[in-house]
Each structure stands twice: as structure tokens, then as C-alpha cells.
């Protein structure tokens, strides 16, 4: 990812625009509405969670490209086991996403007035867990979809759906009732709630931790299984 500076530069720029343009202006719109919370603080956490989600999705695009360019065959000839390769790719996607978002989380903790080691380290753990799950989801999609155009659009939709159908941008109780049950179980909601608990001191239930852990386990497992199947020469040519 370091070789793709434009991706890093633009994602960072988008984060700042989301925070200092969108969140600031929508916060202005909420003045006098007695929401019971500060929208800027609320959204600032959501912006970090959205950004790490977006970055973690890139691992799928990388794998898709490697597969198209035939680079995967070369990687398989390297002297280490396939299981290690699968494990490394999934974790690599999460680690690089966390490295990228770590300074953003520091900024948000500072802006929200919770610049404490517990809040920051706890948030990093939550972000890392979310990134592992999203990397797994992205790898699964990359291994299932065979058309470049489709992959691009499906990844964009998956990113949009995971962020919008969640409590990253707006509190759960404002989401239409029919969608609330889906949004409530979204890993992005769980991660946002847990970080808000650590940074803003808002309340959340233990369920959020369980849901996030389940999401990670399912998609890390699925992503690994699909990639492993491919490496072992399964149904892909």
C-alpha cells in the first residue's frame, strides 16, 4: 500500500473533509434541536471507523489484481506454507489499515477531549478487530467475483452498505425502524459504539463486543477458506 501514495493521500484528505466540512456543517444544522449529544463528536468517531472500513476493503482489490496479473502463482512458489500465506494476507490487510488510521484516532481522541492511554489503546484494539473482519469480507468477495467491473462496483456497494446501514454516521434510533435490526448487528455499529464508550463515555451493551467478535470470526474464517481453496487449485482456473 505504501507503493500507492495516492490512495493514502486521498483517503486522508477525505477524512479531514468529512470531519471539518461535513461534520462541522451538519453540527451547525443541529443547533437548537436538543439532540442530547454533540454531532461533531459523534461523527468524528464514525469517520475513523468509516475510514478503516474503507482501507480494509482494499486488500480484496489487491488480491484481485494479483490474481489477474498472474502474480499469485509467483507468490505461491515462495518458500512458505499456504496456510501461513492466507493468514498473513488477512492479517496484513488489518495491520496496514490500523497503521494508517492510528494517527486519525489520536486526532479524534484529542478533539473529543479523551486523550488517555486507555481510550486510545482500547480504540486501537476495536479498530484492529473490525479491520480483520472487513479484510476477511473483502477477500471473500475478491475470491467469489470474477469480473473486474463487477468487483469494483460490488466493493463500493459493500463499503456503502456497511457504513450507511450502521450507527457510524447517525445514532441507531434515527435509522428507519425496518432497517434498525440489520444496523444493530452491523460490525461497524459495534465498533463505533465501543469506541464511543471509550472516547465519549456513552453507554453500550456487552452485545457489541460479542457481535464484533462473531463478525471477525465468521469473515476471517470465510476469507481464509476461500483464499485457501483458490491457492490449493479448487474451482478457480
Amino acid at each position, binding site marked *: 500500500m505504501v507503493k*500507492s501514495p*495516492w*490512495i493514502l493521500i*486521498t483517503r486522508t*484528505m*477525505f477524512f479531514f*473533509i*468529512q470531519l471539518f*466540512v*461535513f461534520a462541522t*456543517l*451538519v453540527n*451547525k*444544522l*443541529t443547533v*437548537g*434541536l436538543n*439532540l442530547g449529544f454533540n*454531532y461533531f463528536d459523534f461523527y468524528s468517531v464514525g469517520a475513523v471507523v468509516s475510514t478503516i472500513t474503507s482501507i480494509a476493503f482494499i486488500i480484496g482489490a489487491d488480491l484481485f489484481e494479483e490474481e489477474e496479473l498472474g502474480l499469485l502463482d509467483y507468490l505461491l512458489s515462495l518458500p512458505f506454507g499456504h496456510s501461513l500465506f492466507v493468514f498473513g494476507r488477512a492479517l496484513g490487510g488489518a495491520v496496514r489499515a490500523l497503521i494508517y488510521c492510528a494517527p486519525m484516532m489520536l486526532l479524534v481522541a484529542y478533539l473529543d477531549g479523551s486523550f488517555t492511554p486507555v481510550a486510545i489503546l482500547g480504540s486501537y484494539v476495536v479498530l484492529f478487530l473490525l479491520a480483520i473482519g472487513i479484510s476477511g469480507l473483502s477477500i471473500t468477495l475478491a475470491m467469489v467475483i470474477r*469480473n473486474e*467491473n*463487477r468487483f469494483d*462496483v*460490488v466493493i*463500493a*456497494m459493500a463499503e*456503502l*452498505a456497511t457504513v*450507511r*446501514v450502521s450507527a457510524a*454516521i*447517525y*445514532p441507531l434510533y*434515527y*435509522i*428507519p425502524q425496518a*432497517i434498525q435490526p440489520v444496523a444493530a448487528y452491523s460490525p461497524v455499529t459495534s465498533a463505533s459504539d465501543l469506541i464511543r464508550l471509550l472516547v465519549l463515555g456513552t453507554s453500550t451493551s456487552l452485545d457489541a463486543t460479542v457481535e464484533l467478535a462473531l463478525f471477525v470470526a465468521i469473515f476471517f474464517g470465510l476469507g481464509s477458506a476461500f483464499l485457501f481453496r483458490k491457492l490449493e487449485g479448487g474451482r478457480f482456473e
Partner: protein
Amino acid sequence: MSKPAQVIERDFRIFFADRFLLVIMFVNFMIDLGVSGLSLSTMLKGSTLFTQYGSYFLYIAPGANLITATVASFQSGRDVWRERIIHDTQSYLLTLPFGKSRFAFSRLFSGMIRTTVTTLPGTIVIAVLYRLSFPLAMMGVLVMLLYSGAVCGLSVVAASLASSLELFTTVRSTTQVYLSFFSTQFYPASILPPAVSFLSNFNPMTWAVEAFRDLQAGTVDVTLLAPLGGLSIALLATGYVFYRRTMEY
């Protein structure tokens, strides 16, 4: 069939070959409108800034369709880019018995048309929400066409300059962020800081979304359509110039 019509027909066939993509685009529109639009609208219920539009939901509804139009318009640029860089078919296309200028113009025009067609379901949804009469709904289609022209121009500029997919997608994302956040798609002009307000004047989204909102009042404001048309022509002309440059060796 005339030669430009053949080019347009070819672009339509490429675009509509995969209907799955069209479904996904509509799903994205519905997520934007039905989830984000309704949620933000509920949150901002009671704000007096949107009384004249009925609600914040109705205020941002045209923006959701214009975002879909942005995505669809950039597919035109992506096609041009793929022909140039991936498939290397541009040299073949230029050997066809067809003037280069006419070819470039037809490609841009086909991008406008197919974006307008792709976003037609969304335009109808908003026309129904706004309770527009048929002539006003047609004006809504015109707004979408003009906006599509502006974004197609931008996408073809990006496709003509980008040598890698990474660069093209970066320009695409940056353009989308500029169109969304530096315009009046989410917030009224009255609350914009001076710098954002200045930038929003050169943003086709601002004029398109305002022109569409104005239809709800049952009027057509030429002072909103004229800048949109002007920006559209300027960006199409820029796209044309850059695309033509790629055809010279």
C-alpha cells in the same frame, strides 16, 4: 443509422451488457436515499431551515440521484481509459471510417444519454416524492442530462490523463468528494463558510441540486439552469479537447 448514432449504440451496448451493475447502482441510490436520507432527516426534524422543502429528506433527495449520476458518468471515462490503456483498442477504433472529432463528441454525448437513462428510475422516484407534473418531471430529466454532461466531461479528462487505474480511481474519488461535500447537496448555502461557498459556485452539483429542488415549488428557475448549462458545456468542451489530444500521435 448515422455514424454518431452507431457510436452511441455501441456505448449503450457496452454499458447495458451487465445489468447487474445497473441494479447495484439503483441499490446504492436506495441506500443513500432510504437509509442515510431518512436517518439524517429524522435527526434534523424540527430544523426550520428546511420548512419550505417539507423536510430534510426531500431537501437531500435529488442529491442521492445526482450521486448515482456521478458514478454512472464516470463509467464513460472508465470505458475510454480501458480502451486506451488496458485493451489498446483506441488505435483500432480510430481506423474506422469516422472523423476523430465526431467520434470524440459522440462518446461524450453517449455518456450523457446513458447516465440520464440509468438514473431515470431515481428521477422518477424523486418526481413522485416532489409530486411533479409531467412537464416539470421532464425538466428534472433535463437537469440530470446537463449534470451528466458536466461529470462525463470530467471523467473523460481523467481518463485521457491517467496512465494507471490507481490514478484514474483517485481522480474519480476526489471528484466525488468535491461534488458532494463542497456543494449544497447536504447543507444550505446560508451556512457555508466563505471558502466552501466560493468553491460551491463552480460545482455543477450545487446548480443541479438547487435547480431540481426549485421544481418542487412548481417553477423553473432559469438563473439556476443557465450556470448548470454553462458549466456542463465548459466541462464537456474540456473533456473533448483532452480526449482529442489522446488521438494524436
